[in-house]
Structures are given as C-alpha cells and as structure tokens.
C-alpha cells in the first residue's frame, strides 16, 4: 500500500525574520524525496515542524490525508534522524537493537566490521560507526515514513554507498525525506528533489535548476 505524507501552509517567523512561508512537500512510499537548501534556509526547522517538535505560526501536516500535528508521538508513522547523534552514548548496541526490535545479526551480516561489537557501548564506537548505527536504526525500524537530516555526515565513501543501497531497499517499505549538504548524493538517490530557498520549496525537474535557484553552481 502506498502511503502519503503532505506538508503545506507552513508559516514560520522568528521575530521579524520570516523563515518559511510557502512550503509544499510530498513524500510517499516507494520514493525518496530530497530536500536541498543553503545553511539557515530552514531545512531542519521544517523537519522539526513535520515531527511536531517546533510550533510554527501555521502548518498542515497530513499522513494519508489525516492531520497529525505531533508526529513524534507516532513512531509507527514517522521516525526522525536529527543531524546530531541522538542515541545515548551509554547504551550498548545490544540494548539499542532490542529497544527498536531489530535483529543485530542482520546488521552485522551487512556491516561485518560490527562483528563482536554486540555488547559495545555507543561511546566506544567511532563517529562514523555511531552515525551508521543511527541511520540503520531509523531506516530499518518499522514505520510508514522516515526523515533523515544529514545522514551522510561523518560517513566514509564506502559507508555512504552502503547507506544509499539500504535507502533504495527500504524505500519499498517507507517514504523517505532526506536532506544533506552532500548534494550530489541527494541528487543521485532522490526520486523527487525539492530546493528550499527564500522560505519556499521548489520542486526541481532538472539539476540545472539548482544553479538558477542559487543553491550551487552545477
């Protein structure tokens, strides 16, 4: 079954500064929606608004047509990978995989470098390994949608390749919304590409439009 997440009517101001004013985003099962934007253009704010952690002046967030203002209470609907490490460092991989009902054996088969680390605490892993675990947890845990803010940060090129492969597998099960400054990866993997500029989202059809929208020189 295809599920649909739609975002519109988002209006966000900080004091006199208008951050978001004309946003439309659609994310659906089977597709990866990429979101690009320069620093400070409101990508993370938009994700926090969708998740329900940030209250804007107005918003409309709909899952299969139903309004869900606090999606963070519904992990069956939406999971969120923030741009920073979010798993408490003190926890072991065993505990984390158990909390999210995930099979560690499947994980170590895919990423053999984690063999014999089942009982390791997150704090004993490298920055790249920690990020990889977090991305894996959000991608593999059962949910209709997942938002990933900078999933490629701290990852080596080989890890990025493996994560992109995993995203392509998992999009069959859930709609993915991703943003990252490694825009070539986002362009490569996205089925729909949005650019956030001037508080508005633009659905781009050609990479050349990124130049026109002032995001990058292609």
């Amino acid at each position, binding site marked *: 079954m295809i599920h649909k997440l739609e975002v519109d009517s988002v209006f966000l101001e900080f004091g006199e500064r208008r951050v978001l004013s004309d946003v439309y985003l659609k994310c659906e099962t089977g597709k990866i929606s990429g979101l690009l934007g320069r620093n400070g253009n409101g990508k993370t704010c938009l994700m926090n608004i969708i998740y329900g952690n940030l209250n804007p002046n107005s918003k409309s967030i709909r899952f299969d047509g139903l309004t869900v203002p606090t999606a963070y*209470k519904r992990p*069956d609907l939406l999971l969120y990978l923030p741009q920073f490490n*979010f798993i408490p460092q003190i926890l072991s991989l065993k505990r984390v995989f158990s909390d999210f009902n995930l099979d560690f054996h499947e994980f170590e088969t895919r990423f053999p470098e984690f063999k014999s680390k089942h009982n390791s605490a997150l704090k004993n892993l490298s920055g790249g390994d920690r990020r990889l675990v977090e991305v894996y947890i959000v991608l593999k845990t059962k949910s209709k949608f997942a938002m990933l803010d900078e999933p490629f940060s701290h990852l080596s090129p080989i890890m990025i390749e493996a994560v992109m492969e995993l995203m392509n597998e998992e999009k069959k099960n859930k709609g993915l919304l991703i943003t990252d400054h490694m825009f070539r990866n986002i362009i490569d993997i996205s089925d729909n590409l949005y650019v956030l500029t001037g508080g508005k989202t633009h659905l781009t059809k050609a990479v050349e439009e990124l130049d026109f929208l002032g995001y990058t020189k292609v």
Partner: protein
Amino acid sequence: MSYFTTAFVLTLASAYMLFKLGSGAFALIFWFKIATYGVIIYYINNYKSKEFYYYQNLGIPKLTLWISTLSFDFLVFITLLIYVTSK
C-alpha cells in the same frame, strides 16, 4: 553520570540529613530536594536534550519521560524519608 544515579545519591543524602538533623528539618530537606529537581531539569534540558529524540523515536514523549521518572524518584524519596523518621 545518569539522571537516576544523581537523583538517588541526592535522595540518600537527604535521608542522611534527616537522620542527623531530626524530623524538624523535614521542610528544609523537602525544599532542598525540590531545588535539586530544578537543577537536574535545567541540566538535562540544556545538555542532554539531543537524547530526547531517542525516546521520541520509541514513542515516548518528553513529558511522559519527565512525569514518570520524577514521580518514581519522588516516591523513593518520600518512602526513604518516612522510613528514616520512623526509626
């Protein structure tokens, strides 16, 4: 140091103070404990707030976490104080 360890050490310290100072110090110790909650809440909200996303991804909102952990800790605190004053 985890929240639970910090709170539990403070609870033990409160019980020890009550044991030493007597039941007349109950009000002082009660407000001491409330003040430490303020410090703990401030610290966690400012320095550990990123970890709330872990629990939110498990379907546990911040408010539920605060209410359950503070209620449990306060129950332990009151139980221990009652036990000490009855001795």
